[in-house]
């Protein structure tokens, strides 16, 4: 099972096991990661699963769809490494991924 780390703004690190095929938003929410709400349940409608992908991972993930890119325009504190983690699914390809949760 792939392992994904969520880092909070205050530096707190949560190292979590993801189930194959699960969205990383779902991993965060079921583990109570602060700042990840997933209010719309992965519908690309709310932007409450916004994360910054750690530097060395940015181009290792499948790129964001047009819809995700559109939603990312209106999140708080967007960056070049912004993603909505309801759009990233767990697989061996993301094992070791580090995601920062914006304040």
């Amino acid at each position, binding site marked *: 099972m792939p392992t994904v780390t969520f880092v909070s703004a205050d530096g707190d690190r949560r190292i979590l096991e993801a189930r194959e095929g699960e969205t990383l938003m779902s991993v965060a929410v079921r583990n109570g990661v602060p700042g990840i709400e997933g209010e*719309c349940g992965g519908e690309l*409608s709310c932007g409450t699963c916004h994360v910054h992908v750690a530097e060395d991972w940015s181009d290792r993930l499948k790129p964001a769809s047009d819809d*995700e890119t*559109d939603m990312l325009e*209106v999140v708080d504190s967007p960056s070049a490494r912004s993603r909505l983690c309801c759009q990233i699914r767990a697989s061996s390809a993301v094992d070791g991924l580090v995601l920062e949760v914006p304040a």
Partner: protein
Amino acid sequence: MRNHHDVLVVGTGPAGTQVALGLAAGGFAGSIGLVGAEPELPYERPPLSKGYLTGDCGEDALLTRPATFWSDSPVDLRLGAAVTSVNPAAHRVRTAENKVMSYGSLVWAAGCRPRRLEVAGAELDGVLALRSWQDAKNLRESLGRADRVAVIGGGYIGLEVAAAATKLGARVTVVEAQERLLARVAGHTVAEYVAQRHVAAGVRLKVGTGVTEILGDGSSVVGVRLSSGEIVDADIVVVGVGVVPNVEPLAAAGATCRNGVVVDEGCRTDLPDVLAAGDCAVLGDPGSSANGLRIESIQNASAHAKMVVATLMGHPRPARETPWFWSNQYDLKLKTAGLTVQYDNVVLRGEPDSGQFAVVYLRGDVVVAVDAMNSARDFAHGKALVGVNVRGLQDMVADTAVPLKLVLSSAHEGGA
């Protein structure tokens, strides 16, 4: 479950569950009880009319939190217990099994139940509603055996069920009493586009038509008689004609109820130490565009939950949120920001025939809502535009070459 909680939340739907989770996550110092009439652990409702029916979404994806979460949580959870009466003076509630629980504060988040169709034959086997997980299980199983499905009600639920049933291979007829689909929640352009999409998928639409009788053969449904006299053959009938708030115990206890229990901007009812949240609550706040409207949505449940937590913990009130909604039918994704009520002008943005467009609803020069059809961008930008005065900018609003984000910044620069 213990018999006393500092905060007792009634209802394990999204509003009640988010209150309990919010209190726990916020470090609430007192005891938290969460009691629900349904036997299942708290679960997500939106997939019940979409992926759960088609089989695209499995059971384990429905739970709001896994079972292990609840056993580790400070929230004291009790399932399968319906609260039937409230005694606000004594700070006690009673369940259907006559169990008494006392509370410091009560949060009523008991949601709504499907409105029943008051016609002969409504009690026949094969006449189904869709609200709960159990309803969805029954419907999914029935859809597996049904060849012909009659859906009564052309709102979100009816149309999502029609789309799911069509995907599963059934021949579907949708019967809607109003002159167009989605009459309560969307304007003509969106309704027309959605209708065309259903017709293209093979659904028969009967709008401006009521149902006078559900016909049976023994105890099972065989069809529906319309107000026109026409008979629609059906193996199952799905009734999606709205919901009724579960607030009778509060009304009996003296709470002001008007199509839901009335709450103030802090989600307090007018009973001492009783708050309410979600589908069952209606805002009584003249300063809000939502005043007097009972909003049925996930966003509303979440917003109320945050408000309840803030009220109970003495935290600053969260900022008012713009209501928003979504519906997925076939490959169509409709997202709405704001409330499509009391508008006197609409601006169309884009070509419906292209499959991607938006409708901006105005009251005078102020945007009251935006319907975005297959356009995440217009939804995302449109949400920020709700409540904004766009005088002099309507041409930009209509121009798909101009992102709505630019309209927003122009509106702010103009000091409008």
